[in-house]
């Protein structure tokens, strides 16, 4: 090659221009750096520090629930979950994790699949890979921590119900708070993923049980690995951690009025049948000693990972195990209701205790014939109650009248919820003449009163109301507000709130009449003519009770499954301590099905060590 000569002079000018453009370009860069580092430097440094800060929620331990004897029926168990941040957890590490945690091929593949499907935005958020690992896996993961960067083990408390299915409806269960609830209850401090009480006491006392979450501020790198104290000092980041922690406050503990031994007995007694309910109430206070609803479920299912199969099983079961039949269903009371027309007549002098009516097995009213179970012959009030004669009460109903019946029903607190507040209780129904005028084409007919006196027609009440009714008979006329919680205690044992018995009203009936009724009803079980005489009662126990067979289908003679079976009782008859109401859906006759169950529950109550049996010397006539 030959060099044709020096570059032309104009080239030199170009070089000068190029040099100036270069300087200008670099000046632009420097100006930009000035703005970034000097102008906005403080803001960028803050943002860099903000990258490091993570506030970790410290789970609050939920309050425990214990029964009346101090046994723990709802508790918390620590569970350990394994989290990774997908962005920093390579698929190749899955094999290592699987080996350390002892996962099989299927689990490892499932994890790989989940990691692959993660969206771009979610790649930087922690993802839970394993839930509730056992102690062995935990130990191995802890030891191999350095081999698994980006893998974190987090602790969270899980609700556990040691008694399993016992008391399921009473206790309730927890599940995750929904997005709508988060919006409406946002200011209560709930966060996505929090568990909230859905039913039973868990729901009723959610605010007390919940406690308050704490917060711990930690500094982590981009992979979520927590930085040590030395590093925090070396990078001069200590100021980021000042005043940032909040301690968690444990939830309050709840002590129930319910005795789980009695609860178990009640559930067993009722559980022999397809569906049913039973309640035991302390007569002098209104405290609930047992409330059983069958079928029930295991609330532990809701705490763990509930499979779609489990959920469908519960929701699709035609027996509806999730329904609390003690408070959530209104039933025709049937003959257990007869005490009310009886008392109404006594109170207003409409009948004398020794006045007899004749029962020929049927009662004519206009075109209609009202039937009785037997032809009882001439009976007085006490005999009519003990033998459950319908005809007597048809005649009595004509004297008492619908509205007086409604009046005494309200007096005893029927027709509106008892005030327990549990599981959205319903309040039954008490019809009046005016109601019939409004809701029936032909208006009110006397026949309705006849049915009402027998606890049929449109009169309805809940199992709880039935028990409460008989408790009121037994305690001299005091209608209490039923309670399931005895007291609320702080985590350290301090009593925060006690629940003394709450009186709702006192019935306007002279106590002697109530006592007379209770005494009369001892014949149901102990008099050879009594409808439940066949039921074996423990020799040293006197029980006062009433059978009921509530027809729910068209009235057919000798109908069995078309009726609900009832038995309501108090014991010991002459100084009553406990009132029990049992309902067996489609159970047929109260005497055959419900009475034995109620007596079984009473036996269980009196067998318990701190209940003294009533002896016959306790004022029996």
């Amino acid at each position, binding site marked *: 090659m030959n060099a044709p000569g020096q570059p032309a002079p104009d080239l030199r000018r170009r070089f000068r221009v*190029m040099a100036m453009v270069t*300087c200008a370009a670099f000046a632009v860069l*420097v100006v930009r750096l000035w703005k970034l580092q000097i102008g906005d430097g*403080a803001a*960028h440094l803050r*943002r860099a520090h903000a990258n490091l800060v993570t506030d970790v929620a410290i789970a609050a331990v939920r309050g425990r629930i214990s029964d009346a004897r101090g046994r723990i029926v709802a508790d918390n168990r620590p569970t350990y979950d394994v989290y990774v941040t997908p962005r920093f957890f390579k698929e190749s590490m899955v094999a290592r994790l699987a080996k350390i945690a002892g996962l099989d091929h299927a689990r490892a593949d499932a994890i790989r699949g989940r990691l692959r499907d993660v969206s771009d935005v979610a790649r930087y958020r922690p993802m839970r890979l394993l839930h509730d690992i056992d102690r062995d896996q935990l130990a191995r993961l802890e030891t191999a921590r350095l081999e698994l960067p980006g893998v974190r083990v987090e602790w969270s408390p899980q609700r556990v119900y040691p008694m399993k299915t016992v008391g399921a409806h009473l206790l309730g269960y927890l599940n995750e708070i929904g997005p709508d609830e988060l919006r409406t209850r946002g200011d209560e401090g709930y966060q996505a993923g929090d568990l909230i009480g859905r039913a039973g006491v868990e729901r009723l006392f959610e605010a007390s049980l919940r406690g308050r979450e704490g917060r711990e501020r930690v500094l982590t790198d981009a992979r979520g690995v927590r930085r040590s104290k030395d590093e925090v000092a070396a990078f001069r980041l200590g100021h980021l951690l000042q005043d940032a922690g909040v301690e968690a406050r444990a939830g309050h503990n709840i002590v129930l009025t319910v005795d789980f031994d009695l609860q178990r007995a009640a559930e067993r007694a009722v559980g022999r049948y397809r569906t049913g309910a039973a309640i035991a109430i302390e007569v002098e206070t209104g405290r609930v000693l047992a409330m059983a609803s069958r079928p029930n479920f295991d609330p532990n299912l809701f705490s763990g990972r509930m499979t779609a199969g489990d959920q469908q099983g519960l929701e699709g079961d035609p027996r509806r195990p999730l329904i609390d039949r003690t408070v959530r269903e209104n039933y025709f009371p049937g003959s257990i209701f007869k005490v009310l027309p009886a008392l109404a007549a006594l109170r207003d002098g409409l009948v004398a205790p020794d006045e007899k009516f004749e029962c020929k097995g049927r009662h004519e009213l206009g075109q209609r014939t009202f039937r009785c179970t037997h032809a009882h012959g001439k009976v007085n009030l006490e005999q009519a109650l003990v033998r459950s004669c319908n005809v007597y009460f048809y005649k009595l109903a004509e004297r008492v009248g619908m509205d007086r019946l409604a009046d005494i029903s309200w007096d005893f607190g029927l027709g509106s919820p008892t005030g327990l507040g549990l599981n959205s209780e319903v309040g039954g129904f008490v019809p009046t003449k005016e109601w019939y005028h409004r809701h029936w084409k032909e208006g009110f007919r006397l026949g309705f009163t006849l049915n009402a006196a027998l606890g049929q027609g449109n009169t309805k009440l809940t199992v709880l109301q039935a028990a409460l009714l008989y408790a009121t008979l037994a305690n001299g006329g005091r209608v209490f507000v039923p309670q399931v919680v005895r007291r609320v205690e702080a985590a350290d044992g301090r009593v925060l709130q006690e629940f003394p018995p709450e009186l709702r009203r006192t019935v306007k009936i002279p106590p002697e009449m109530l006592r007379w009724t209770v005494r009369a009803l001892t014949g149901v079980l102990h008099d050879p003519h009594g409808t439940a005489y066949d039921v074996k009662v423990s020799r040293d126990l006197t029980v006062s009770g009433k059978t009921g067979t509530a027809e729910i289908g068209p009235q057919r003679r000798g109908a069995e499954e078309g009726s609900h079976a009832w038995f309501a009782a108090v014991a010991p008859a002459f100084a009553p301590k406990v009132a029990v109401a049992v309902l067996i859906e489609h159970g047929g006759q109260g005497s055959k099905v419900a009475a034995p169950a109620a007596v079984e529950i009473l036996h269980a109550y009196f067998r318990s060590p701190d209940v003294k049996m009533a002896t016959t010397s306790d004022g029996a006539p």
Partner: protein
Amino acid sequence: MIRAHRFDWTLAVAVVAISVVGMLNLYSATWTSRPQLYSQQFSWMGIGLVGFAAAAALDYRHLARLAYPLYVVGVASLAVVLVVGKTINGARRWIEIAGISVQPSEFMKLMLILVLARFLNDWPVAEGRSLRHLAVPAALVALPVALVLRQPDLGTSLILVLIFATIVLLIRLRRGALLTLTIVGALAAPLTWSHLLKDYQRQRILTFLDPGRDPAGTGWHARQALTAVGAGKIEGRGFLHGTQTQMHFLPERWTDFPFAVWAEEWGFLGSAALLGLYLFLILWALRLAAEARERFGAILCTGVAGLLFWHVFINVGMVAGVLPVVGVTLPLFSYGGSSVLTVLVGVGLLMSVSLRR
């Protein structure tokens, strides 16, 4: 006859300074994640030093003879890459020889400079060139650019085009040609957008124009780099003490964003100083171009100056948020053996020109 000049200490010190600082920075960027990259770069620096010495000792005018053959070798190696090259992250840019990866597109930059210098030197046109005269140079750059785009490697293609444009600036063009070129350039942008750019490359530019678009994707990278740079403030967070760097919030710390590492740890003072070093080197190269004894040498120096300028300007601009994220490395700072070798040989050529001014 060759007139030996004094050894150009200024040039040597400048490039050694940048190399040393680059190694320091690479250490900070890699020691928590990939410490082996540091030792590999060290080896490449050694090889580069040998290359620098060889290029400086050689009379650059001898290279004029080799320009076309070298160009052909370069293009051939680009073709080979497309066929048997190693793929990383969806891009096929490297050839692996005996466990060492080389990136032919890097060397192509020097070969392009050489071939353009040779061609334009042989064919001086007194009254200014028309477009017709640019046909061959355009073809000379189009061929490697097309091959590089196929890898795909938008950044290197861009550098090749920009080197070409820089050299073209030296040529006297007739006014009509200049006008046409401008119009073509204006049209090239939308055409490139729709036909030449891949989707992820389009995404990057869109995210640059509107950072709110994609906070967890590419935009996130750029934002973390900005935060790192800004967090340096005046004096920097200190060597090995930048949280964005050491806590891994800054991605691509040794490829696209080593300047962010530097800026975070050495602050504005360090950043301005480094930019000053690069500026000095580029201006020195331009000065050598002006003082070269013939056109070939001038174009050679201009080409090397252009290579350095565009790399630094685009990379730092990208880190500082002035330009969209394009994969353009920072000379002697970014990890990459082929790049280090290319830059050091290029500076060696500058030294060769300087010695024979």
